[in-house]
Structures are given as C-alpha cells and as structure tokens.
C-alpha cells in the first residue's frame, strides 16, 4: 500500500463531533422540533438509500458507475434545507443525496439506477444523471466541472427574470481544476450573478489526494479572491454549521445578487465509485477515524438527542422506516419494466417529440 496521503482538511475542522457551535445560529435556533426531526430524517434516508444501493450493485442489478454519498450527507442536507421557491441546484455525478433532499422519491431514484422506465430519467440517465427540474434540480452531470457554467447560467436566468433566487452549483475538490469552473467564476463575479459554488471537498478526486492535484493559497475557496468573490470554509460534518454559513451566502445572493464560493470539508467512506477498490491512496485508519469521530448523521443525531428533540426510540424508528423505504424502492425497481427500443429515439429533439400541424421542417432528424 502507498503511504497514506496527508490529510488536507484543516485541523480545526477535524475535532471530534461535539455540541455544535452553530446550534444557536438564528437559522438553526428558529427551526421547530418537527423541522429538526425532518432534517435528520432526510439525512438518514440518504444514508440508507445509498447503503441499499451497494447491495443492489453487488447483486449485479446496477451496472456502470455508482458514486455514493455516504459520509457527505450534511452537505446536501444543510445547504438544500435552506432553499426556497426560486433557489435552484445543480451538481456532478455524486448526485443521489441532492436528489433525495429536493424531494425526489426513493422509487424513481432506485429505478433509474437499474435502468427502468419508471426511473426519474426513464432509464436514460443512470446514476450520474438524475434530474428533477420540477423541484429546481437540474442534474446530475457526468463530466467533471461541466455543471459550473450551467449553474451560473441558471443564476443568470433567475436574475434576468427578476426573481429573488439563486443557484447552488456543487462540485468536488478535483473539479476546481477544470477550465470551465474558472470561466464560470469569472462570469459570476463580473456579472454579479446569484450563484453559490459549493466545493464539496472530500479530500480526494478518485485516487488523487487534494495536495497532489491542486495548487491553492491555503484552501480551495480562497481562489475566489482572484475573482473578487466572497468565500468561506465550512465543517461539513456539522449540518448546523453548513446551514449557518450557507445562509450568509444565500442572503448575499438574494439581496446583493453576488456570488460566493463555499468550500465544505467532508469525507466519503466508500471508494470513488463502486469500481474503485480503494486500496492505493488512503489508509483504512483514516476512513475509520472519520466514520467514528466525525460522522455527520451520527453527529446530528447526538445533537438532537442532547437537545431532547430526538429520543433513542424515535431515532430508531426513523432509521428503520428509512431502511424499509429503501427496501421497498429496491422491489419497485425490480418489478418495473425497461424502456423499449422505441424509447431509444424519444427525447432527442423537442421537435421530433412534438410533431404536429405546426411543424415546418421536412428534414429527417433521426437516422437509420
């Protein structure tokens, strides 16, 4: 085994999970008991959905790539729990957690993974390409960094339409080295667009630790300074902190129409994808430490137990319900039909799908 990579997460962010300094922050203090339980429930649902996926993958029912979000739940949960009607999100291929957070059902998510027509993208997108535009979720993008300009464009549209909203564009720590991301940063700042670039820094891009891939002035978010943008770093193991600091960026977007780069330190417990044997680039001890000391779902559970919002019984109930929901989704996916051969050539062009008396083109746009 290669020597364990040096952890790049600032020491201060690795302290054992304890009471959150941000519990009293207004965005958290103002949450009702029910809202806190709902937030915890969503995090637990992401965890159990993802863990159920592992089994289905191992049974050979999910092929291709499967990138799990286990360990990173507080990022999607914290940020998305703050969003309103005109706030949009877009992310990369590690997209299941975001989908469940915006309210996609486990059934449609699971069925997409197994390529069923009942999946959110009718079996056409797969794990990396979830979409739910009705829930302001614009994907699910497989090409690293490709979503950053799109997110900037969604923010542009929000502003153009005169709406008080924003777009959160998520990416990984490896994605920050794509040219498209830098071009998006510049446009966002130059044109005062209400976009929040959320860098989910889980320490690795595939098998490459952050310090082997990225030159930066202390942290990745600080690159924002080169573009005259605001930035912040966040402990992504504490959902309260994620909420508190994201709320500031959202306010900046809503009230000043200005962009922000947020770097959220987080950790993935499994390999890059299910295809990654995860043997060469990090130490098992490192994974263990994060799991045991900084788990975001457990940390929030502890927090809520201390606050007496949760009881152990209620927590158990929530987790069991999430597992049962994931089991049911697995059955749903199993029992759903595949798309048909005729479906292959649907959804390529709006024109083709909407031919009618008003269609003027005589051209053939799909070839045999």
């Amino acid at each position, binding site marked *: 085994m290669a020597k364990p990579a040096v952890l790049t997460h600032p020491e201060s962010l690795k302290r054992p999970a304890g009471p959150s300094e941000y519990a009293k922050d207004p965005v958290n203090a103002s949450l009702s008991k029910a809202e806190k339980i709902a937030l915890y429930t969503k995090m637990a649902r992401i965890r159990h959905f993802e863990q159920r996926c592992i089994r289905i993958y191992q049974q050979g029912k999910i092929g*291709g790539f499967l990138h799990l979000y286990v360990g990173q739940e507080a990022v999607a949960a914290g940020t998305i729990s703050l969003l309103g009607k005109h706030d949009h999100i877009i992310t990369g291929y590690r997209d299941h957690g975001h989908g469940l957070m915006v309210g996609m059902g486990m059934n449609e998510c699971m069925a997409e993974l197994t390529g069923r027509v009942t999946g959110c*993208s009718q079996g056409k997108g797969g794990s990396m390409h979830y979409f739910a535009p009705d829930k302001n979720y614009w994907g699910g993008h497989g090409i*690293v960094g490709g979503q950053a300009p799109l997110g900037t464009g969604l923010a542009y549209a929000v502003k153009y339409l005169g709406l008080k909203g924003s777009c959160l564009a998520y990416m990984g720590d490896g994605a920050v*080295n794509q040219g498209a991301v830098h071009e998006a940063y510049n446009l966002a700042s130059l044109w005062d667009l209400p976009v929040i670039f959320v860098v989910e820094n889980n320490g690795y*891009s595939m098998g*490459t630790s952050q310090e082997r891939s990225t030159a930066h002035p202390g942290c990745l978010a600080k690159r924002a300074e080169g573009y005259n943008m605001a930035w912040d770093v966040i402990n992504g193991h504490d959902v309260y902190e994620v909420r508190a600091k994201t709320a500031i960026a959202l306010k900046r977007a809503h009230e000043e129409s200005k962009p922000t780069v947020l770097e959220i330190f987080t950790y993935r417990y499994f390999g890059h994808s299910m295809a990654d044997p995860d043997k060469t680039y990090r130490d098992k001890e490192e994974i263990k430490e994060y799991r045991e000391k900084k788990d975001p779902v457990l940390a929030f559970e502890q927090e809520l137990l201390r606050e007496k919002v949760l009881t152990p019984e209620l927590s158990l109930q929530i987790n069991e319900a999430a597992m049962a929901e994931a089991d049911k989704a697995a059955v749903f996916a199993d029992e759903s039909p595949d798309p048909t051969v005729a479906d*292959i050539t649907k959804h390529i062009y709006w024109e083709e799908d909407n031919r009618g008396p008003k269609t003027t083109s005589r051209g053939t746009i799909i*070839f045999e």
Partner: protein
Amino acid sequence: MAVISYREALRAAMREELKRDDKVVIMGEEVAQFNGAYKVTEGLLKEFGPKRIVDTPISEAGFIGLGIGASMLGIRPVMELMFWSFSYVAFDQIVNNAGNIRYMSGGLINCPIVIRGPANGGTNVGATHSHTPEAILASHPGIKVVCPATPYDAKGLMKAAIRDNDPVYVMENTILYNDKGEVPDEDYIVPLGVADVKRVGTDLTIVAHGRAVITSLKAAEILEKEHGVSVEVVDLRSIRPLDEETILASVRKTHRALLVEENKPFCGVDAQVAYLIQSKAFDELDAPIHRVSSIDAPQIYCKRMEDLQMPNVERVVAEALKVLA
C-alpha cells in the same frame, strides 16, 4: 508468440517505447500512483519513475495542451484520457492546436503527440461517458486516428503511433481490454493506414473498426454455418489515414458491402467508406451498400436497451442477409 490481453499489449507497447526513447513521457489522470483507471499503465510508475509517468489534475484542456506544446520541442508525450468522452473539454487543443500547427507554420513545426484512451459505448454509463469520436476527429486533416480491435493491433498501432511525427489519437475499448490474443515477442509495428483482412471470404465484404470487427467476425461465422455465405471482414484499424486499396480490393472480389461501426450513423466513418466504394468501385457492386451502426440517439443508460442500440451479432447477420438477398 505470447498470448496476452489487449490491455497488456498496450502496456507492453508503452513500456518498450519508454525504454527505447527517453523522450517518451506518459501523462494523464490516475496513470501513475493509481496505476491507471483501467490499469493500462499498471506498474509503469514503479519501473520508470515520476519523471516519465505523470499524474495530472482533472484539467484535460490544460494537460493535453501542455503535451502538445512539449511535443513541439521534441518530447514525445503519450497522454491518457480516462475516456475519450472527456476529450470534449479539450477540443480546442486536440483539434485546433495539434491538428493545425504544422499547416499554419508552413511545415516548420510538427506535433508528435499520442492521445489514447477508451472510446466506446456498451458499458452502461450513459450518454456523457459513451462517446466514439473517431469520425469527428478524423474529419480534421492534420490528425491521425486509429482504433485497434485485437491485442496484436493494439500493440503494433500504439508503437507506430508513438514513433509517428504527427498527432495520433488511439481509441481503445474498455470491453476489449481483457480480450486475449497472440502477440510476437520481437519488436514490430502495425503501420498507420494499413487495413487488415481479418477473415477471407468471397460473397460479402464487411468493413468494420474497433469492437465492431469482433462483432462482425462472430456474425461471419454464423453466416457461414447457418446460411452458407462466405464473408470477408476488413478491419480498418486506421481511420485516417484510410487504407482505400484494401477496402476496394475486397469489394472488387465480393461485389457486396456491409459497413459496421459502433458510431452513430450520421456523418459516421462508414458514411465516408460508403462514398469511397461507390465513387471508386460503383460498377463492381451487385447490391446497394448497407450499414449497421448504433441507433441514432444519445447513448441510453439502460443496459438492456444499450445492447440493442449498438451493433450486435443478430443485427449484423440480419443486415448481411439483406445485402445478399
């Protein structure tokens, strides 16, 4: 002759060229410490060290462009794209810079770069990861494109590509990486621009490249056994330069042609091959040329449908029978 896999053949080619020429450098995402996303470069870091085998950030436009620049000063970079699908973020470098520099400098500069990696569908990863850009890239004069189908060709073409003084883009196939075949122990190359008759026949010519060759060979066996038809399979190996003579010679013999590729049909490689045959061997044809390619849509995710979207043995047999009817 050793029997090795397509993956090992590619690796052996790179190893031998790294040894032969100290200007050869391997670069790409995860090629060194992680031993390659598909393990093609496994062990090379250990053997040649970090100066020769270099991990890059996820910055295709940057590192491919860097390789092109370095090649102008005599380095011989062999750049890995984890997938050719990711070449699209580096399109300007790959097409505009590598493809035009020699021409625009009036021949003063050349660009001996190799860019390699898998370019295939069939792996259940959806549209963004399943591109087959050989036709798009080969449509640019200044660029060479090869698509090996067997371990022998993979090694020979890779070595020829590394020794070539122009940009050569090698399109591999993840589904073929484990395929085994005989490969000579001694040094050899497969010249660029030389097609190979992979099966000799008299009734029908199938022209194919990449994995479509393997599919066509299986189809040819069925056509022989079940329909008593003798099929010749021409493997293009190299898309540009295109070996016109081998294609035409085969058609002159069989008088019928079926073109098979895993690309989408519109502006595919076989659109060009069909034009070639009708323009130079029209009088030889006893039937219209037919094509089998992927169904004209972005790659579908659902594996069961993807297998039907792509050329498969059944579709090739059925289409061959139409040409023969």
